[in-house]
């Protein structure tokens, strides 16, 4: 559940007290890199298919991985810099610092003056932004292709030379608090989602919201942000994804030129913080001004760690397509259209993450129905899969949609860069994407029935309910009854 890209501001201060000297590693030894793309080229030539070679990948001596996907449809390019650092890496009392630092990344370096980063991207005819998720923090520029070198220079500069100025921080933390008010405090569904996760996870950091608890934001200091940056913003904790009308060899050389001199540094040990097994249903209610109640149900679920050996995440992804992949998929057809128990209902499962997985079902009861009615109806639909499985027709349909999406995704350069960046963020190689697609295509109806039986159990379930409150203090719909 990544935060949407927060717009970012210009900077005021040129203070540079926080700059560390950078030691430029002489880059005479390019052999490993050259060897690598030589091999790639050979492999590509041998099989005479560019698809196998593209995307291209190299790793600089400082550990920075660079992935280039050539796409010559239009004279544009996208650069994304991904850091393997998100709210999952935060500690109590400092929730939200990953996202706050993302904001601070636009506040300048000793080399790029106040306001310059955004100004230079804008002057280049580019668009830029950034986003923070549980698992990663990413920055991007969409530009006319000839501006790529300048963007690489700018990103390389702020990878190690950021100024975290106290005065800037004081202004920016207010902006982040406004962002929290907008996204969460005044958004009943977001508040419910936040509370539900805080109940579903007790030990694992996924229990904390990405944007941070308000009180943690209130007490956060520039030193907290600086410490975060110094610890995690190093080339060996990052990778660069570039798509567009570019030549990968040229880009690799540019990457060496701009990023190659940045110093690697050992990273702290990241402890696993495994969530203890849930042993019984959990329920949470959130009251907020709203008209309609909302139901959210979440079951603990497996995550893809081994592309070849794991099978359950693929089966759950295909189940998601069968239940909620199109307008006449089971959930919408039965719960919204036929039985009219819901105004809308969604099934969500993402099989890739650094942390533990969850299957989310959320929906809004129709007029005259309660969240208890909706919960019962969702349970009945899931029981139907558990008892009778799914049909070959449904599975075939899900496969057809999957294949078509593979074509449509090529229409967006940004989308292609996102796909590569996201899979790499969880520690899986982008080269596994094709293999994952094949594995998805191979899922059988029997496998889907097995995972449905295994994972939709009450002991691993958390249920959240939004209990809508009147804006004016007058009672509205009857209070939302929770069952049990």
């Amino acid at each position: 559940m990544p935060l949407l890209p927060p717009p970012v501001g210009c900077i005021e201060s040129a203070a540079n007290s926080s700059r560390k000297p950078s030691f430029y590693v002489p880059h005479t030894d390019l052999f490993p890199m050259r060897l690598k793309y030589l091999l790639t080229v050979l492999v590509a030539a041998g099989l005479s298919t560019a698809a196998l070679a593209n995307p291209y990948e190299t790793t600089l001596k400082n550990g920075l991985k660079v992935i280039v996907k050539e796409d010559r449809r239009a004279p544009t390019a996208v650069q994304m810099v991904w850091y393997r650092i998100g709210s999952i890496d935060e500690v109590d009392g400092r929730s939200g610092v990953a996202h706050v630092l993302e904001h601070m990344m636009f506040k300048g370096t000793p080399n790029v003056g106040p306001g310059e980063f955004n100004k230079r991207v804008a002057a280049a005819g580019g668009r830029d932004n950034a986003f923070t998720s549980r698992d990663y923090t990413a920055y991007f520029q969409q530009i006319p292709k000839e501006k790529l070198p300048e963007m690489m220079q700018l990103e390389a500069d702020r990878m190690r030379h950021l100024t975290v100025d106290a005065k800037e921080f004081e202004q920016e933390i207010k902006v982040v608090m406004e962002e929290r008010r907008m996204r969460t405090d005044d958004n009943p569904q977001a508040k419910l989602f936040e509370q539900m996760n805080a109940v579903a996870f007790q030990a694992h950091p996924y229990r904390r919201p990405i944007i941070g608890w308000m009180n943690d934001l209130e007490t956060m200091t520039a030193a907290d942000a600086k410490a975060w940056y110094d610890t995690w913003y190093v080339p060996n904790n990052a990778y660069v994804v570039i798509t567009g009308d570019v030549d990968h060899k040229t880009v690799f050389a540019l990457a060496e030129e701009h990023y190659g001199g940045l110093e690697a540094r050992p990273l702290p040990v990241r402890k696993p913080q495994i969530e203890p097994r849930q042993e019984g249903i959990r329920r949470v209610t959130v009251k907020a001004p709203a008209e309609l109640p909302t139901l959210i149900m979440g079951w603990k679920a497996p995550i893809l760690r081994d592309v070849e050996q794991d099978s359950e995440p693929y089966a759950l992804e295909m189940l998601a397509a069968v239940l909620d992949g199109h307008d006449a998929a089971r959930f919408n057809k039965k719960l919204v259209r036929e039985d009219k128990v819901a105004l809308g209902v969604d099934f969500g499962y993402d099989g890739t993450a650094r942390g533990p997985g969850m299957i989310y079902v959320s929906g809004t009861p129709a007029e005259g129905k309660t969240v208890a009615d909706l919960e019962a109806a969702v349970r009945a639909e899931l029981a139907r899969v558990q008892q009778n499985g799914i049909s070959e027709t449904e599975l075939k349909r899900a496969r057809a949609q999957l294949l078509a999406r593979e074509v449509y995704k090529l229409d967006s350069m940004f989308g292609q860069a996102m796909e590569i960046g996201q899979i790499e963020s969880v520690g899986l190689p982008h080269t596994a994407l094709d293999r994952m697609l094949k594995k998805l295509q191979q899922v059988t109806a029997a496998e889907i029935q097995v995972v449905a039986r295994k994972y939709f159990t009450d002991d691993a379930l958390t249920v959240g309910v939004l209990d809508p409150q009147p804006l004016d203090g007058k009672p509205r719909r009857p209070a939302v009854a929770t069952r049990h």
Partner: protein
Amino acid sequence: MKNAMKRLLTAALTPLFTALLALCLSQAAQAGVKIEHWTTSGGARVQFVESKVLPMLDVQVDFGAGSMFDPDGKAGLAALTRAVLDLGAGARDESQIAEQLADLGATLGGGADTDRASVALRTLSDKAKRDIALSILRDVLHQPRFDAAIFEREKARTIAALKDALTRPDAIAGKAFWAALYPAHPYGKQATPESVAALSRDDLAAFYRAHYTVGNASITLVGDLSRRDAEQIAERIAQGLPTGRPPELPVMPQALTGQDVRIAHPASQAHVYLGMPAIERGHPDFFPLIVGNYTLGGGGFVSRLMKEVRDKRGYAYSVYSYFAPLKQPGPFQIGLQTQRKQAGDALKLARDILLDFVQNGPTEEELAAAQANLTGSFPLRLDSNKKLLDNVAAIAFYGLPFDYLDQYQDKIRAVTVDDVKAAFSRHIRADSLITVTVAGE
């Protein structure tokens, strides 16, 4: 998952915002992209851009059938007509349509905004798949069933979504803003639970027959297709449409007297809007206004509003301004959200920045920066089939010249500081500004 839920909950408002976004994004079009255009035998306009790189095809059919054509007392009719249009057509019921599209890997989208109702098909260009997908599209356009039970269900969902929207500060502010800007024009009419409840199935069928007509249709095709196939596809789409002409446009919006609207709400943040009706599509002041607005509040992180409201004072996460030219003069709008106790200060600041800009315009340096970005980013506006489709469809629907895209960068470059000042002075008047604050103190 959450997004889908939110989509549902704000269903009633979404088309409007989508429309505005599309209009903002579609201010540019294609230099060097060949737009072929012709008229079908029945009089529908057709635009075609061939793009063979990817094996896919987009077809969008637009009608002048947005909410501005809602009859008196029937606010919400255009939106509901479009919503029910593809839920059962010809020999297929709603499930068969969705299932067959999924089997083909095709999707059917679109929606209705103030001006336009759209039906958009994306399909693989493989002929066997394409032909079935197009037959579904034709049925939806030619033989919508408007099944009574489905109509009642969608009506109930729309009413519920409207009621929910009326508890949300952003939605309340948006509705109040449009109502205040257009007190005597259809743009100001808002669908309410009551107005939607009064709609009948026959209203939908009649609205369809009057507005989804061949003379009111604009068909845009982008993708892996020959000109010859494009002609045949367009002809067959056009032939089965009801006959009819584009509808009469309402009387233009009238000049306003400024007004300060305040609405109570328990939210922690106030939602603040400021603006007035400005220009229609094709207005000669369009280029000076968008170049100027880049500096004022359109240029994202480098705009004056962003620097003053967000960076210097930390008042807001998001602050922006834009012009949304429509068939008839659409709004100029500034928007921000801030802690309720600061709402008054933030509004005053935004207003001062605006009025200073109207009087003095941008500096030469700001103008050059705006022109550099707007011309330099031009390729980014056209680097996918989807973006091409959005742009070409908008150009055709609004009757802009087909060389609009070729001219775009030159027209941006030609704007001077004096042009900006003159254009802003003509369209933004301090005594006509409407302000809306929801959840202020």
